[in-house]
């Protein structure tokens, strides 16, 4: 049973000739980690913005628990690519920010924030200033902040895109651990193929002009990691490599088709 569901969503910017997204239907249920993978221009960020409620679709329906999505809300927590923490507050206050907005008393919200910081492996960083943190640490705080508000679903907008390769791998593993412990459904967008294949329980591949779903895959590499297998052994597994190459080929064949179309 789906918690979040998108039915035949399309989106178009005013004045644009072609829609950004066309006929997108997808659903997200408990314990799912849905990854939207696609090259730039395939509308993945638009898709996330639609679900988050930052923009409205030009057609179709988005529902959360059956109720239509209207505007941004704490039910749909977002982790952004860039650091969007508040520099005038320390780490603990940043994590507790959503609860403060909801009017949760200080003691309670700080306890909860400490718990979330522990979850992302940042215990001891409570009173740090935001600008003293590294890129990876900032993204962990961002994740803890989104989780502290206890959203129904977690939306992640290329959360590890700005990190170096080593930190990115660590963060991927951390995300899987967090998913296992919190059971939150996650919708994540990325343009990193390996990341998508590793993390996703469900993967949708988007192609541009207009943004549309060209392939859906159900994967289990993330679950294997959570069952105790090491990330390196999964990523060097022939089946993983095969899947990765398959997805890569699909991306290129789409791009080739588009180029042929342009030339014709």
């Amino acid at each position: 049973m789906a918690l979040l569901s998108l039915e035949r969503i399309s989106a178009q910017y005013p004045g644009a000739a072609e829609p950004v997204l066309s006929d997108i239907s997808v659903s997200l249920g408990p314990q799912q980690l849905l990854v939207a993978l696609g090259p730039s221009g395939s509308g993945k960020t638009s898709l996330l913005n639609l679900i988050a409620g930052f923009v409205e679709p030009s057609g179709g329906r988005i529902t959360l628990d059956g109720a239509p999505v209207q505007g941004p809300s704490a039910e749909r927590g977002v982790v952004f690519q860039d650091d969007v923490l508040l520099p005038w507050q320390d780490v603990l206050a940043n994590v507790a920010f959503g609860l403060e907005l909801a009017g949760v008393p200080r003691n309670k919200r700080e306890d909860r924030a400490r718990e979330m910081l522990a979850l992302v492996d940042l215990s001891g960083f409570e009173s740090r200033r935001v600008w003293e943190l590294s890129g990876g640490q900032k993204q962990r705080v961002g994740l803890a902040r989104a989780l502290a508000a206890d959203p129904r679903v977690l939306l992640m907008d290329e959360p590890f895109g700005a990190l170096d390769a080593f930190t990115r791998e660590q963060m991927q593993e951390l995300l899987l651990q967090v998913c296992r412990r919190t059971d939150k459904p996650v919708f994540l967008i990325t343009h990193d193929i390996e990341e998508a294949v590793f993390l996703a329980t469900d993967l949708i591949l988007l192609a541009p002009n207009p943004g549309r779903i060209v392939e859906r895959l159900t994967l289990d590499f993330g679950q294997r990691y959570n069952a105790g297998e090491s990330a390196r052994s999964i990523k060097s597994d022939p089946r993983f490599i095969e899947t990765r190459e398959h997805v890569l080929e699909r991306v290129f064949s789409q791009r080739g088709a588009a180029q042929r179309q342009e030339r014709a």
Partner: protein
Amino acid sequence: MSSYEAVTGAPIAVPHAPRPVKRSLSTRWISVLTLVTLIAVWWAVTAGGWIEPLFLPPPSAVLQKGWLLATAGYMDSTLWQHLGASLSRIGLGLGFAILTAVPVGIAIGHNRIARGIFDPLIEFYRPIPPLAYLPLIVIWCGIGELSKVLLIYLAIFAPIAIATATGVRTVDPAKVRAAQSLGATRWQLIRHVILPSALPDILTGVRIGLGVGWSTLVAAELIAATSGLGFMVQSAAQFLVTDVVVLGILVIAIIAFAMEMGLRALQRKLVPWHGQAH
């Protein structure tokens, strides 16, 4: 208006600014040396008798007069009372200006209709030198305290409102979205995200406003007042009491300098993240 230069020209001191390894004489010492030289020249030309004390009294005479003014007073008030009168006027003007200009600036930066209403009004009166509309204010409100506070208020209002609007307009939209997706209402957004984001700009506006306000105040007191530093200088000039004039000018300059330094310190304390990569 020296504060404009200070704001745009001199770099705002960053606590962790890298220090050049080798430097024979720091900038601060060069400044101190210049000041000392200037006073030494002042002392030399007056002590040598090249300039009549009527035109430029020696530093010692000015200091002595300062002591006399502080204890006995001039024109029915001591130096402290003149200073107090000027400071309370600028304090009142500044207080009202912050209370009104910050909300107006937020409205301009945040809301299309408010921008349509206030932008032309502010841009229209801002370039007018305050002393040009002082006569009108005197006709409307008399020569009492109200006129002077109103004049300073108007002089300070524009820079703070404009700086606030700029600050609000340059708030990182991603921060706004992040707060919205954490459930922030419109007011919470202003209170928790927009206002603190704009704070560095607001403080810069206050710095500029205070500089403009202080020069305006002293000028206003030259024209219509019975107390205050400007009045003290003006009435001393009428009786050719040059040492009081020089002393008054020095005190005016020192106060302006102290306010500027105080605000910079406040800026460092209130917005330590400003200039940091975050």
